[in-house]
């Protein structure tokens, strides 16, 4: 059985580099409504962490606490080794947002409409610094907007505004960059390419970054580590692959990617299910629910000759959604179970076709849920 690991414990287990951020035991509520409870998070320098959670999970509040726009009721926040907020001790320590060396990219970018692009970028630089112009130039070059410094923000496209916001946040060389749902205002076409750009820019700048998002695909594709948040707590932190293949709980499995569950009986590293005996990643005993991702299902035409045990069970295709790069088939199994299967675009299954269903690879089992 996989136990529930606390965020900070898991995060600090493999620390090699110094910490850019450490939050411990942070409680935060609006009035009587708790938003964060015993929230802990650590981020290494140079790391890109995604804070993934549904809306209302408290992820934006966590970001605003780091930036210093909100004050916690309890807990401590350290940035770059310096205590910026200590709500636990009597005297209380509080560093205002402008002294925290935190850069923020807002959801709607919050560019200053009355200033040119260059003056937006230089806004956070020391006023009489000698290298001001050079730093603006290199920040704009970094985001691929060299030469556009004279424009005003409303003359730029959404993607360009996004990159100006990034350049503005990076120019003062902050300890951490915070990104609050930065891609949600871009249309789907642009989003993928801008996402790729942002990742490259942050990596080139060697920046530490925290991205807040509700889009699991975005979190998995862009971050070094993903922290899953639900109801004001971090439930699991880990590399994207670990989160997807080894979710710690059923609710994480359901939130990160599509998950479907098949009842079974576990004996050591094997579980008996309607789909036959499946190999388990970890040994366990008793009634379990086995998690199946749609792409773990393998379909074959029912007419192919049976090649022994493990060849799968019979089913009928019920419906089909074609996406171009792949397709999602709904299969009704003989035992009465209905499962979704994601397969390549070139298989010509149609609704009504008879298929045999088998599972590839090992599977993850969770203790059987009552009801």
């Amino acid at each position, binding site marked *: 059985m996989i136990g529930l690991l606390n965020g900070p414990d898991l995060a600090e287990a493999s620390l090699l580099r110094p910490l850019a951020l450490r939050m411990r035991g942070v409680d935060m509520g609006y009035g009587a409504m708790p938003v964060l409870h015993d929230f802990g998070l650590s981020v290494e320098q140079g790391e890109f962490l995604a804070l993934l959670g549904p809306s209302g999970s408290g992820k934006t509040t966590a970001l605003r606490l780091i930036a210093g726009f909100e004050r916690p009721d309890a807990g401590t926040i350290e940035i770059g080794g310096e205590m910026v907020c200590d709500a636990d001790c009597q005297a209380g320590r509080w560093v205002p*947002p402008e002294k925290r060396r935190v850069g923020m990219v807002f959801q709607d*970018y919050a560019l200053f*409409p009355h200033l040119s692009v260059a003056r937006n970028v230089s*806004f956070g630089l020391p006023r009489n610094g000698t290298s001001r112009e050079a730093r603006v130039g290199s920040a704009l070059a970094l985001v691929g907007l060299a030469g556009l410094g004279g424009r005003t923000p409303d003359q730029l496209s959404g993607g360009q*505004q996004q990159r100006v916001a990034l350049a503005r946040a990076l120019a003062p060389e*902050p300890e951490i960059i915070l990104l609050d749902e930065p891609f949600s205002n871009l249309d789907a076409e642009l989003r993928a390419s801008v996402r790729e750009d942002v990742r490259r820019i942050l990596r080139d700048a060697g920046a530490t970054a925290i991205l807040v998002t509700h889009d699991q695909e975005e979190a998995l594709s862009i971050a070094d580590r993903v922290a899953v948040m639900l109801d004001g707590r971090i439930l699991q932190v880990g590399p994207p692959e670990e989160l997807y293949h080894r979710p710690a709980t059923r609710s994480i499995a359901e939130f990160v990617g599509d998950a479907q569950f098949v009842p079974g009986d576990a004996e050591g590293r094997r579980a008996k299910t309607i789909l036959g005996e499946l190999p388990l990643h970890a040994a366990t005993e008793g009634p379990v629910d086995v998690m199946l991702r749609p792409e773990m299902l393998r379909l074959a035409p029912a007419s192919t000759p049976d090649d022994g045990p493990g060849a799968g069970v019979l089913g009928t295709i019920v419906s089909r959604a074609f996406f171009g790069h792949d397709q999602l088939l709904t299969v009704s199994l003989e035992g009465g179970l209905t499962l979704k299967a994601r397969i390549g675009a070139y298989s010509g299954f149609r609704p009504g076709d008879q298929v045999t269903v088998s599972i590839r690879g090992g599977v993850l089992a969770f203790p059987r849920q009552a009801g």
Partner: protein
Amino acid sequence: MLPALLVAAVELLPLIYLVSRTFSAGESAWQMLLRGRTLEIAFNSVLLAGSVALATVIIAVPLAWLTSRTDLPGRRFWSTAAALPLVIPSYIGALVIVGAFGPRGLLQSALEPFGLDRLPSIYGFFGSWLTLSLFTYPYVYLTVRAALSKIDPAQEEAARCLGHGAWRTFFAVTLPQIRPAAAAGALLTALYTLGDFGVVTLLRYDAFTRAIYVQYRSAMDRGGAAILALLLVSISIVVLMVEARSRGNATLHRIGSGGGRYPRPARLGYAKLPALLFCTLIVGSALALPVALLMAWFIRSLRATTDFSTLPAATLHSLTLGFWTALIATACALPIATLLVRFPGPGARIVERLTFLGYALPGIVVALAFVAFGAGTPVYQTLAMLVAACVVRFLPEAVSACRTSLLQVSPRLEEAARGLGRSHAGAVASVTVPLARSGILAGATLVLLTAMKELPATLLLSPTGWDTLAVDIWTAANDAAYGRAAAPALILIVIASIPMLFLAPRERESGP
């Protein structure tokens, strides 16, 4: 198209009169224009307009910021109360200021026991400036508040993240973005000051409007009055054009959709007390003082057996004038607004300019032109004449209200009705009219209430013996009979408060 153009051309009548009268006056008119006295009057008017505009900004910007962005105690109360001086007609304001600070006024009687029997004179520039600043600052306050509410709070947070403290953030991010709105509001108060008749006449400051009235009254010198009026209108048009341009600049505030989050209020800390004192001082002198003083005068007048017999008639007259003006102005405004909204083009642009010009026509100028047109004809000194002058004066307001309500009805809706089988007229009747009706009615109500307060046109044009509330207040004020002025003034203020119920800045529900 043609009816709209004709109606809009009515706005030109006063100008045509002024120009023709000036030219027919011949050479002497030009000599008059260059006379030292004329230049002095022009200087006085411009000086007053400029100082009032400056003062209103100094009053209104801090008020707007305090009431929308800070943890000022009683913020909701202050945010409404600060807009309320708008309901006090400025000539009533002047009456109160004279009553409070003038000779034998409230302050002097209070100071007399201490041996102070002479105060610096309230008449002239200082009194006019004080009165107009106190009673017109809400124009700036409301526009600045609107601009503040449009700034994405994330911008201020972004500035904090980039190392700027609260004060530097205000000066580097907030202030530059409310500057166009403040400028537009200030120019509006300047325009109002240029055209205002009651304050400068009661407080005896030689600005254009007073000089025009005196010239007209004493010398019956129409040519001289016309030249002054033409000069005044020209200056007003310049101010109006600058105002229109600054308003155009004021529209760009948010880039992107904007989260619409409620900004976290700034903590005032130790500044709370001075902030409260400031709000109390402004709202106290522009709202509490006039209302309290008028009430006191009213109560005293009850004991002094003042004659209230003319009050019902005057109220009825004011309502009659307001009703006809609103009805005819709205009827004239509808074709213009339809043209502007549905058929934009060069014709519409001309009509738009013509109506917009009406904003630069002070009441005294319109009145003067109508007196000249009407004199000797049977319509002179009839209600029809007075209503016609008021329609010319308030047509721009009526057009603006109709236009706004028509703009809110998308032409797509009419097209949808056509697609469902309605005729063009049927679509207008079943879709456009019901949707625009409440907005047009609100606009008409606003015109009705504004026309009731109109002073100079009523003063010059109302039929003999047909006094309105405004005229009653005016006569009483000139006799320094404050008790007699109190009752009609209170009635006017109550009536003028009605639209504030709709226009008062509505507080957004407080955020998380």
